């Protein structure tokens, strides 16, 4: 199972990466794309939108199901990955390369409280019985 050690995670299967400019990139984990199967549609939030931690701010849809994406931290959407609109399969190909959107966090402590790789690994393990 692929869970990079340098990333943070949510219990709703988003990964979070801190960028050099202080923003965070958000995507869905390898495990999440594996559960969903082949993705056919990605909907990102509008740039400029203010989101609260845990708020729905995107959708990924596969041949099996549609699933909401939740903001891992509170902040403002500063960029979205428009490439995914035409090529959602990039998430299936490399979930950690295919970021969905970037947030400028307003509550820096929230990032520190996200799951680390070990914590997320344990969560996945427990959900698989």
């Amino acid at each position, binding site marked *: 199972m692929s869970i990079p050690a340098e990333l943070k995670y949510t219990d709703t299967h988003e990964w979070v990466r801190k960028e050099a400019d202080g923003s965070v990139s958000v995507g869905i984990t390898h495990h999440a794309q594996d559960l969903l199967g082949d993705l056919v549609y990605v909907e990102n939030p509008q740039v400029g939108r203010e989101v609260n931690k845990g708020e729905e701010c995107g959708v990924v849809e596969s*041949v*099996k199901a549609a699933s909401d994406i939740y903001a891992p931290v509170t902040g403002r959407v500063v960029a979205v990955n428009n490439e995914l609109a035409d090529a959602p399969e990039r998430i299936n190909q490399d979930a950690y390369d295919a970021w969905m959107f970037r947030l400028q966090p307003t509550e820096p402590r929230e990032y520190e409280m996200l799951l680390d790789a070990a914590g997320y690994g344990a969560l996945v393990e427990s959900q698989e019985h």
Partner: protein
Amino acid sequence: MLIFDQSRTGRRAQAQSPKRAAQIDIARNLLREDDLLLPAVSEMDVVRHYTRLSQQNFSIDTHFYPLGSCTMKYNPRACNALAMLPGFVGRHPLAPAKTGQAFLSFMHELQTMLCEVTGMKAVSLAPMAGAQGEFAGVAMIRAYHESRGDSGRSEIIVPDAAHGTNPATATMCGYKVREVPTDGDGNVDLAALSAVVGPQTAGLMLTNPSTLGVFERTIEQIRQVVHNAGGLLYYDGANLNAILGRVRPGDMGFDVIHMNLHKTFSTPHGGGGPGAGPVGVNERLKPFLPVPIVERVEDAYVMIDEVQRPQTIGRLSAFMGNPGVLLRAYVYARMLGREGMRRVADFATLNANYLMAKLRRFGFELAYPERRASHEFIVTLQALKSETGVTAMDFAKRLLDKGFHAPTTYFPLLVPECLLIEPTETESKQTLDAFAAAMKEILDEARTQPELVRQAPHAMPVRRLDDVRAARQLDLRWMAT
């Protein structure tokens, strides 16, 4: 192959060809000059083409169809025969009530029977489908709160096991959706529910038995939590078949319900309709029911509308639902009678539990092994997938080769690699045994020749379809060249 691909210039069905031009009084400049684009084929071409298509159909008339949460039961031919009587088929929807008293009396009786079997106070037959019934139900919740000047209620609560239509309906009606989780036994998590209700709660949408195939044991407490917060309880009738005539949503404390007559009352189902999704309400929601509604005034049956019901949420179509479907449901209900309706729930539940026990003995893993099934149950193939690489989708495709329609796959989303199986009351023990035997065969194949299962289906008119391409580059058009 499309019938257009069989077209050969000059070929035609002579017997059906018009023998002379019609006498028409339309100005020449309004008449089309080129021929209609119709396939040029013989009568026999047409017969063979459509007969072949009908033979490729996988349907309840030809195959067992254990599609969980869809209640694909047999449609008795008598319902069809009676609904097709010329007096019904030929009745114009704008015909005056006095010339359609028989039809109106049947609709009135259907309203009354649906009230009785669900424990609600009034029913409207207006919704044209289950989704429209849901829309009408939540629109009534909104109308109720607004009529009281209670405008702060902005949220509808939906359990995470719900049908996708529930959050969609709430959103359509302008509500924010608040999701509540399910506990380990498949019940709504009561603590989580208590934590999210409040003055912003407009209502809760609940399916009981749930899509996990189990009865919500804490329905009484759920009702109290929601009602104490001032919210209303919406009953999604998707799984009404499991409790028909045995337990009534009205007695459980639901304020508003919708029923899928194409599920529970055995009207034709699938293919996009026509459907019927009547709504039932308790006393306080009665003024908001969609119109028209049939009422008996002295000795006559009349359609009542916006004039008599000024607070109605309005009309959902030009007329009142799909009358042909409502008539079939009416005949079905009359044939069953009160006792028959109880047997629907009894045998639906018995069949599900028999099949569940049998599959468990064959080595299938149940999602909720501690719970008795309602009318459907969930098998999870998670362990089999880890062991053999065979997925729930592969399993479903292989079932087609064995002559069975696949159960619902990958729903509810909570359970990984799941099959949601609903046999319904109309199947015999022999059919259930044959289905269980096919499931066992596939389980063995998954272990001995997994590629055979992963490549399935092998015996269908088409092999494995490219779902991804179909979703991303949907192409339903045919262009003349």
